[in-house]
């Protein structure tokens, strides 16, 4: 077959791959944007209508207690991964430590009522322990990683300089003034934060869309040992960038192909680290911080999942 003939045969397929990648790209953006806006709305209300002291009062001053408390904040702001980042940015601007914000960011996508219920609905008939283990593992990993970062004395060093400047200009404006002024300020925060997070989302969505058009089932060939299956499912979770509110149903499709320990890894790792959340987090944290974050979360998820495969299923 000549090159030209080969090209002509391949052309419709290539075109389909491109149009599908475009569809997936827009689907990620259109699905994420409303959640970003919701997160931005909550964070903007926090900024304008809630005093810094009120937020800080909720968090114990003790390092350990502070982290174990903030890991439950997802129950207060059940806004999905995309919406959590604007809330975390606002919490940092209000005075919480960046390490505590990391704990919040890692825990909130799972430690929230919607995700717990959806995981229960998906897995209660197959393996109830997955529901409990997902919640426990996510909580523990979030707290441990946050505590490790809290040992870092220069907490500001975890953040991007641009974000530190942003926080300092934001804190200049007190939570006072007429309602009209508050509304105007609210709209400015919505505009600014939405564009900030959305622009970071573009690259992550593009990569996820390109990788998303590749075959998923072919990875099943790597599921010959629990460890490789765990790693493969974590890689899948990273590139698939599925919202934590529904990922349990997607994971169901892999039950039977992959061991349950790797399904657990998928359900714990994905909401914490994926292409989308990482690109959004890059608006706030330094690359060095994110590299350490990914390394720690990966290690802990592998340890937890291998433990489950040894002592559980």
């Amino acid at each position, binding site marked *: 077959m000549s090159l030209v003939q080969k090209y002509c045969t391949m052309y419709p397929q290539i075109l*389909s*791959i491109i*149009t*599908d990648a*475009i*569809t*997936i790209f*827009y*689907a*990620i*953006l*259109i*699905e994420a*944007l*409303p959640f970003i*806006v*919701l997160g931005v*709305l909550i964070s903007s209300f926090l900024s304008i209508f809630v005093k810094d002291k009120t937020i800080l009062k909720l968090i114990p001053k003790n390092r350990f207690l502070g982290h174990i408390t903030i890991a439950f904040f997802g129950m207060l702001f059940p806004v999905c991964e995309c919406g959590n980042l604007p809330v975390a940015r606002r919490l940092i601007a209000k005075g919480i430590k960046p390490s505590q914000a990391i704990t919040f960011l890692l825990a909130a996508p799972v430690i929230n009522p919607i995700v717990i219920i959806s995981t229960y609905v998906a897995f209660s008939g197959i393996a109830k322990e997955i529901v409990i283990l997902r919640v426990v593992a996510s909580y523990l990993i979030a707290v441990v990683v946050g505590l490790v970062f809290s040992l870092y004395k220069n907490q500001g060093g975890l953040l991007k300089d*641009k974000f530190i400047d*942003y926080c300092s200009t934001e804190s200049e*404006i007190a939570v006072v*003034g*007429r309602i009209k*002024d508050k*509304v*105007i*300020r*609210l*709209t*400015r925060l*919505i*505009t*600014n934060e*939405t*564009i*900030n997070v*959305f*622009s970071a989302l*573009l690259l992550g969505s593009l990569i996820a869309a390109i990788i*998303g*058009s*590749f*075959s*998923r*089932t072919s990875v*099943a060939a790597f599921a010959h040992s629990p460890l490789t299956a765990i790693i493969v499912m974590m890689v899948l979770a990273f590139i*698939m*960038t*599925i*919202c934590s*509110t*529904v*990922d349990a*149903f*997607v994971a*169901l*499709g*892999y039950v*039977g*192909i992959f061991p349950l320990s790797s399904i657990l890894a998928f359900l714990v790792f994905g909401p914490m680290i994926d292409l989308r959340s990482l690109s959004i987090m890059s608006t706030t944290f330094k690359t060095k911080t994110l590299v350490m974050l990914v390394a720690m979360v990966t290690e802990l998820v592998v340890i937890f999942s291998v433990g489950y495969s040894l002592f559980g299923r």
Partner: protein
Amino acid sequence: MLKFLNNRNILEDLLILMLGALLVFLKLTNQLNFYIRKDYFLFTFLMGIVLVIAGIIRVIVDLSSEAHKNINHHSHCSCHDCGDDCHEHKHSSSFSLVIICLIALVALGGFVIPRKPLSAVTAVRRTGSNTFVSGSGPRQKSGESTLIKNINTDKYTIADWIRSFTLNPEPSDYLNKIVDIKGFIESNDADSFRVTRFVITCCVVDATPVSLIVDEPIGNFQVNEWVYINGKFKVRVKNGKREIIINPDKIEKINIPDDPYL
């Protein structure tokens, strides 16, 4: 002319307006169907409205603030005179023109790029254990079989049939059941083809294909074409396995439905 384009804040405001308008436009033109699950439509629409309102308020504030700045061009601005608007003067955009243009381009693309559901190529790539094309396995208890036989399956979609096969994989229980489905042609071999729909849980990122086999050569139809199929189930034995396949009475080419995903 178009002096305001030099004002980065106003460009940002227009961008937010555009993103909000895109969400509202997709909802009002029923095109969200191509991206996300129905349950999210209202939420997406409401958040679109929020962006539109925020964008309009910002445009008004920034335009009036721009006019105010021009009036006081040669005089000092006093906070006593303009109150909180001074905060608006202080605020300057932190986004580069490149980022603003990039987002504008993506938003514009959202309006104009023709919408298409995921194709057969992705269906083939995503076909896994949760795609059932046949039913085989142990016969269920007689009670369950009777239940399947007595259920009204007139409005069953491909996904409904697949769920039913999962509950009761005994092929003979489906013999002569009427099938009335829509889907796209995913692939074909010499004497049959697969008709497929994607099922989505959240958005097309998690779309999973479900398929049924039609016992008919593909003929003049082509892969990726949407078809309406009416017929009855029959059982065939292939490679030593009994399979449930459709014996078609009618196959018609149709347009892509408004709701391509199940």
